């Protein structure tokens, strides 16, 4: 955990109650602690990558109450009462999320730095039916940078996951 300066230690502490990846957490945070720092340093969820710390790169994308947001641009205290999902919370009972499978199958990652953000944003696109076309997916991940420039495989992976999910839904429906 970050020690902080003496001034920071004197900062007001606020109680928050959040549910992170299904786990209820009640704790106290400084008013200006970023959500990205809270997740990485207080909860050790280091899958939340911090690339730019200025809302540009999207590597720190998480879901707050189902909405994808850049966690470097939200204060932890603002999440009181919210449900947060990070990359660590996407798999269920040890089974990879379809997007995680798809990124592996379609080589949707190279160095892997942007991957958690890409997958979380991809999950938001799938959940909100915003991955119907390739153009929609490209627009949908426009806030996520991949410095390996591996966009084509990322787009392919999201399309692959979308088709996997819809096939499953069709099978469930029958």
């Amino acid at each position, binding site marked *: 955990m970050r020690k902080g300066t003496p001034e920071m230690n004197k900062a007001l502490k606020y109680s928050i109650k959040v549910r992170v990846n299904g786990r209820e957490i009640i704790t106290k945070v400084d008013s*200006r602690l970023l959500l990205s720092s809270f997740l990485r340093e207080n909860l050790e969820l280091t899958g939340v990558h911090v690339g730019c710390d200025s809302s540009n790169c999207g590597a720190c994308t998480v879901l707050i109450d189902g909405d*994808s947001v*850049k966690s470097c641009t939200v204060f932890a205290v603002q999440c009181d009462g919210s449900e947060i999902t990070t990359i660590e919370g996407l798999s269920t009972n040890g089974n990879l999320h379809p997007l995680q499978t798809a990124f592996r199958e379609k080589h949707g990652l190279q160095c892997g730095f942007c991957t958690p953000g890409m997958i979380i944003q991809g999950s938001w696109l799938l959940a909100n039916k915003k991955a119907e076309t390739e153009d929609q997916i490209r627009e949908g991940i*426009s806030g996520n940078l991949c410095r390996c420039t591996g966009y084509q495989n990322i787009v392919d992976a999201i399309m692959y996951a979308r088709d996997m999910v819809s096939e499953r839904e069709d099978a469930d429906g029958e």
Partner: protein
Amino acid sequence: MIDLRQISSLKKITEKGSYLLIGSMVSDRKIESSRLIKEKIPLIAAVANNIGDPQVRNRGTIGGSLSHADPSGDWGPCFLALRGSAVAVSVKGKREINSDHFFTGPFSTALKEGEILEKVMFQIPSGASGYSYIKIERKAGDFATASAAVQLSLDKQGRCSYIGIGLGAVSDRSIRAVKAEKKVVGKQITDDIISEAAESGSQETDPYDDMIRGSAEFKREMIKICIKKALTEAYKMAEGLS
């Protein structure tokens, strides 16, 4: 720092008479997907759709952006083109701030200490109207290099009965191109008039040189293109409806 999240009245979109009222904490996402806004003042939905990227729009709000008053922000030009007004509230009561007096400088507004922006009011355009928001950006999701929002109405004779031109990123604040508007209002719109208005609008700007998005001269040229395109699009749309 005060968290306003729990005040639900700040998150409402309502229609009242000939006005749309948008709470200051309504997200860009909610605005771009609101059926009411798309139907009544589609310029507002179009502008919302142009902001940042999906994650930014999930989190960003119209009131937050207007109060932050970034000279390159997207809401400023829209607010000015629609001649909206901002409702400020404090323990002393409420007051309305006309869009022409809202921005007072870079990242500065007419909001006073102790006041919060409660909502923004927009008059719903009547008759044959058209709109356009043209934004030149260096890369996807960037702040504008130059941007122009246009709202236009035509009367039964096909003359321009309302014109609002708001410009972003070309001055120390979002500005209304008043002289350009004067070239258009009351007239039958032609290509020449549009070119004249674009020229005039460009002269009303005062952009600064910057290393990332270009020189002042470049931005003056770009804003001319934005105004021309936006006026042409808005006019064609209105003409199609008249």
